[in-house]
């Protein structure tokens, strides 16, 4: 289609649109379907983007940081911590290693044991935060060396327990996109049905138009314009409601974890605005091909 005909399609030739009689239920069906589908698409998009953010963040943290625990009798703790730190600074691939202070360790435990916790009462290990460089270190080699020189050291690189979470978040993201594709396909199918119903309800009109010298594109355009505009309007309303729903969800917070992180951030708020355009595009293509299939059967 040329740009000119897209312009006529959108601005519309009022006469051309009137040539085909208004088609009751197909209009409402298209509005409703595209509205409902756009509403669902907003949530699928939110799910996909949030899961994606989570997967990226977890994967990043997972790759970059690890913890070294030193479980040693009180009199050996300081010596073992110093030895471990020395080994860590010598290990290639480690950007930074730092023993947490007593206050920092207390802060980490407060959510679990309450504020009036005295660390000295508990056999809490000394924690060393390890930040990985790029490229990273050889975890197996480091473990061997630590086992030989710092008997109380345990390297916890989070990998074991976080990797499945990252995978879960990634498949959630894929599911979100899959849902969006399904929504697109279902919308196309419904609009094709509605367009076919409108076309066959107007078979007589189409035949008369052909007989008096209307070209296929003129006839098709009368239908395409209608369905495209309806899909655009329906989807805009659906997206508005969907965005309202997403905004009504609780803010992202540390306590809520994943569920409260569902939504859009920053520029990604603009992404749902593409949904009505995509809906209109789907309707355009679906109606265009339905109309051309019908017209081919006429002389």
């Amino acid at each position, binding site marked *: 289609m040329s740009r000119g005909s897209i312009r006529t399609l959108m601005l519309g030739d009022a006469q*051309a649109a*009137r040539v085909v*009689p208004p088609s009751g239920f197909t209009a409402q069906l298209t509005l409703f379907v595209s509205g409902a589908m756009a509403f669902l698409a907003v949530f699928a998009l939110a799910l996909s983007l949030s899961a994606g953010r989570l997967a990226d963040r977890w994967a990043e943290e997972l790759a970059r940081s690890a913890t070294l625990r030193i479980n040693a009798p009180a009199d050996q703790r300081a010596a073992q911590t110093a030895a471990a730190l020395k080994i860590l600074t010598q290990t290639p691939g480690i950007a930074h290693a730092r023993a947490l202070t007593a206050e920092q360790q207390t802060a980490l435990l407060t959510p679990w044991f309450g504020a009036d916790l005295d660390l000295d009462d508990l056999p809490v290990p000394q924690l060393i935060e390890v930040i990985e460089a790029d490229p990273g270190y050889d975890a197996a080699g480091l473990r061997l060396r630590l086992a030989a020189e710092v008997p109380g050291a345990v390297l916890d690189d989070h990998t074991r327990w976080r990797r499945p979470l990252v995978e879960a978040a990634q498949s959630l993201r894929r599911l979100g996109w899959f849902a969006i594709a399904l929504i697109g396909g279902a919308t196309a199918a419904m609009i094709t049905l509605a367009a076919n119903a409108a076309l066959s309800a107007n078979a007589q009109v189409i035949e*008369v138009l052909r*007989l*008096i*010298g*209307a070209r296929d594109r*003129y006839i098709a355009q009368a239908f395409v314009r209608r369905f495209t505009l309806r899909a655009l309007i329906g989807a805009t309303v659906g997206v508005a409601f969907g965005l309202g729903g997403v905004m009504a969800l609780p803010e992202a917070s540390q306590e809520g974890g994943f569920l409260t992180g569902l939504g859009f951030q920053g520029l990604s708020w603009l992404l749902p605005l593409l949904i009505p355009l995509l809906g209109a595009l789907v309707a355009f293509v679906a109606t265009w091909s339905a109309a051309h299939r019908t017209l081919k059967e006429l*002389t």
Partner: protein
Amino acid sequence: MGLGRAAKESISNAVNFLPDRCNYPGSKAQVTNRIHTEYIKAGHVIELENVGYSYGGGELLSDVSVQLIPGSFHFLTGPSGSGKSTLLKLCYGALTPTTGRVRAFEADMRDLDRDQMAMLRRRIGVVHQDCRFLDHLPLADNIALPLTVSGPDASQEGSDLKELMQWVGLSERAHALPPELSGGERQRAALARAVIMSPDVILADEPTGNVDWEMSQRLLQLLVELNRMGKTILIASHDLALIRAAKSQVPVRVLRISDRRLQLAGADL
């Protein structure tokens, strides 16, 4: 239509000296058409060559050959069910012949693509047996429909809608919906729609089918007037009185379908 550039220029020069309006509702473009028609006198507007047609069963028409020369006036008669409507449909490309070929304005219809067929139909005005209006549009819009669907460039070439509606005596009925019209009004409206693009040829299928004698005379008058302006006319009708009335005004040839073949009817009419 095979006109040289020089010829076209001389036509448009000639047109510029003509008054803006003739008796018939028309613009300069219509006069141009008329002169074009005279230029192509050598050729045929529509030509059927050994055409056969069958709807799937036995052959309804066989070995039909006929040529409509520009400015001619033909009647097509034959008993009901003999294939008059079918023959007209072959002439405007609504049906494709099973054998033989149909040419319009020197072009073989089989060679035309869908858009070219649409363009061809703008040059052939058809009055359908059942009129075929869009019932949701007021009469004026129905009559203007060929202009509407042809887009903005064609609007200048067509006739003035008001004048045309006056010519067929339907000015008062412009806002009526087709189902509200009487038989005669429908037939006149169908004729108006057929000529609004100022076509070179007018095919009318039983245009006086369900109207009284007086109305059929009025319709005939309109068709005779169009013929005097150079339009080629083909009317399918089994109304012998109508044919006699036409014969008294213009030179008319009568074709008859009998036994699947087309014959030139003699003086017995």
